[in-house]
């Protein structure tokens, strides 16, 4: 465990929020930091997706319909099954954001939700 000391003024500001949430300052700050890291990983996936889009034609030529894992613009793994590639990638890269996708016809796959909903009762 790493001990981080909060500035006293900051700790005082956090106390009422922790009480409102019925948790400790330590728990709350840990949750916030985890959320922040998760958000950062999401942002990096967008950047990786842009690199993937730019390289899609050449990747399609080499890996058509295979699953690839891309990290910093490099293909770091490939295979037939998404879950198998994912597990190998997690083993190697931990929580680092790695794009894992099947190299389909389109660089960005589109899925359809065909179910319109009524907002008012039927007449």
């Amino acid at each position, binding site marked *: 465990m790493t001990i981080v000391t909060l500035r006293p003024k900051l700790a005082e500001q956090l106390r009422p929020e922790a009480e409102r949430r019925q948790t400790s300052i330590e728990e709350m700050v840990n949750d916030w930091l985890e959320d922040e890291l998760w958000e950062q*990983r999401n942002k990096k996936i967008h950047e990786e997706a842009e690199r993937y889009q730019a390289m899609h034609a050449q990747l399609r030529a080499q890996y058509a319909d295979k699953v690839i894992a891309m990290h910093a613009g490099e293909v770091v793994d490939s295979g037939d099954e998404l879950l198998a590639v994912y*597990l190998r990638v997690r083993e190697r890269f931990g929580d680092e954001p790695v794009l894992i*996708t099947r190299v389909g016809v389109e660089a960005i796959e*589109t899925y359809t*939700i065909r179910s319109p909903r009524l907002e008012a009762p039927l007449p």
Partner: protein
Amino acid sequence: MTTRYLDLNYVLPMPALTVSIGRVGERPWLGPIEAVVDTGADMTVLPLPLIRRVKAHPVGKGRLRGPWGDAHPVVFFLVELQIQDLRLPGTQVAGDEAGREIILGRNILNKLPLFLDGPQQQTDLLDDATANRLRERRKQA
């Protein structure tokens, strides 16, 4: 296992199942939560706050298109799902920033033997024996 259709917030009762969510390789601990059964959806969609709570890893980017062609960018995640007693490891889902409901799409529904009992407003996830009996009956018909 049977789940009652949802009738709050829907003009007509909606078939539903209960799901629990977790990170891949871990026990799905978040739930059970009611999820709508939507055979018109290509892909399963989860509200982003639920995905954030289990800290699922993002794996890619795509688009979701509505019935009239409007498309929205989404991030895909890999999660561990449990639908009633059935565990679905490494399921790809789309994260929805605005939505508040879980939509079970055909990437999951096509793996399940389901009985939608409209008149009784119950969704049943059939056990193997019942599903096999129905399959046999279909062969004989």
